[in-house]
């Protein structure tokens, strides 16, 4: 599965600037991909848990991103049931702490053999563990913007811009089968700018939010669609 699209407002090319565009975003390119290793599917009463990969392995995923994906995959009709990650980690303490969490699906069998672990996971109804990796970085920026205030009023002049890259991956492990089911990823590149002629007009590319929504949508489809691709 592969989806790429550019989300640049058409008005940008004509340089039409109005106050109303402050509500619009900057320019973004989104790429969402999924790769299945095995057939998936989820039954009534089963859920998934979404956990941020360990910072001990160098991962720096923002906590807010995990919260966003968790919220998005539950939304609307056909939303997935998500078991709270903090409750899951407490239930299985200390085997899902940043230092001890399994580093790959190969570690699942040994983990399930630990006393009480398989029973506790079964009780929780969790079928899939989704590991989130990645982050958002500012990659470039420039321009200048200056503002001044005087007795007669104030204003800003100039143009400031910057680019953000949001790149995330969700690795899906099937606990029932004890192996990897595959992964989905979302990469969003966005350019934000603040042009100002008296009034600054922020045109913000919310790359992290776009990556969250793209990843969550793909993740939902990945798990629900039963066939292996």
């Amino acid at each position, binding site marked *: 599965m592969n989806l790429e699209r550019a989300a640049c407002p058409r008005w940008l090319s004509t340089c039409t600037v109005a106050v109303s565009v402050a509500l619009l975003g900057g320019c973004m390119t989104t790429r969402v991909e999924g790769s299945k290793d095995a057939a998936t599917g989820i039954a009534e009463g089963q859920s998934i848990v979404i956990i941020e990969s360990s910072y001990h*392995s*160098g991962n720096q995923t*923002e*906590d807010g991103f995990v919260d966003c994906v968790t919220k998005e995959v539950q939304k609307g009709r056909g939303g997935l049931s998500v078991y709270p990650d903090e409750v899951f980690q407490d239930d299985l*303490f*200390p085997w899902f702490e*940043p*230092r001890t969490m399994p580093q790959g699906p190969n570690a699942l069998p040994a983990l399930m053999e630990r006393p*009480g672990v398989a029973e506790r996971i079964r009780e929780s109804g969790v079928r899939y563990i989704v590991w989130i990796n990645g982050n958002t970085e500012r990659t470039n920026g420039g321009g200048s913007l200056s503002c001044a205030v005087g007795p007669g009023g104030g204003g800003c002049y100039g143009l400031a811009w910057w680019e953000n890259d949001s790149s995330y991956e969700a690795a899906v492990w099937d606990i029932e089968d004890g192996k990897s089911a595959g992964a989905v990823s979302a990469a969003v590149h966005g350019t934000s700018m603040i042009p100002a002629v008296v009034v600054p007009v922020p045109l913000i590319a919310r790359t992290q939010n776009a990556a969250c929504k793209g990843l969550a949508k793909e993740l939902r489809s990945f798990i629900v669609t039963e066939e292996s691709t």
Partner: protein
Amino acid sequence: MLSLIGAGCSQNVQVQTTFPEPLVEPLPVTVGVHYTEALTTYIYSEDLPADGMDWTFSLGSANQLLFESVFSEVFTNSRPVDAPAAAGVDAVLQPNIKAFEFSLPRHSRSDQYGVWISYTIGVYGPDGELRTSWPVKGYGEVDSRRFKGNETMKQATVMAMRDAATIIIDSLNRDTAFRRAVMGGTVTAVEAADQLGAAPGYELHDEGVDESAPEVEVGQANEEMPELTGEEWNGES
């Protein structure tokens, strides 16, 4: 007005939390746990003039809750005792904090608040003789955008305490000198020296730990970890 500006501000991190019960098979031993006043009233303070801020961390009661939660599940029997020597137990454990460090996002050039806590767990025989002293260094970090105010630092402290608990549980789940000392065995000087070199706090995912833990520029340890000789580790000092 100037004095108000120069006064800076204080951040008081009161760690009041509970810890989950570990999911482990208990070791068939009865241990006494000696909680020292230094541990149960532990407070760490540090002034950061460059940030115009002083930080105070109160961990006392949380420390006791942490060890009660761990030891009550990892041993078949555990009870508090008044001294390192106690009758009717296989061993007495005496946890202490040896050092506390923290970092702000500015110091680690990241978005993370970080906390390191170095504990030592003294393992004594029922006669009060020191069998070994096991160092445990817990690390926790939390995204600065996750919580407001000093709640982020509090959560990073809780993460460091949970990490320390994880290391203790893992050390007791494997054939370590710590486990042997608790079970009544002896620890040789060679084993003790090996453990010091291996830094037990970083045993599990040792390939990534040192890189992920940012270097600390401030928040220096309030008490340096003493260099232990083999004899001290062997309980012969």
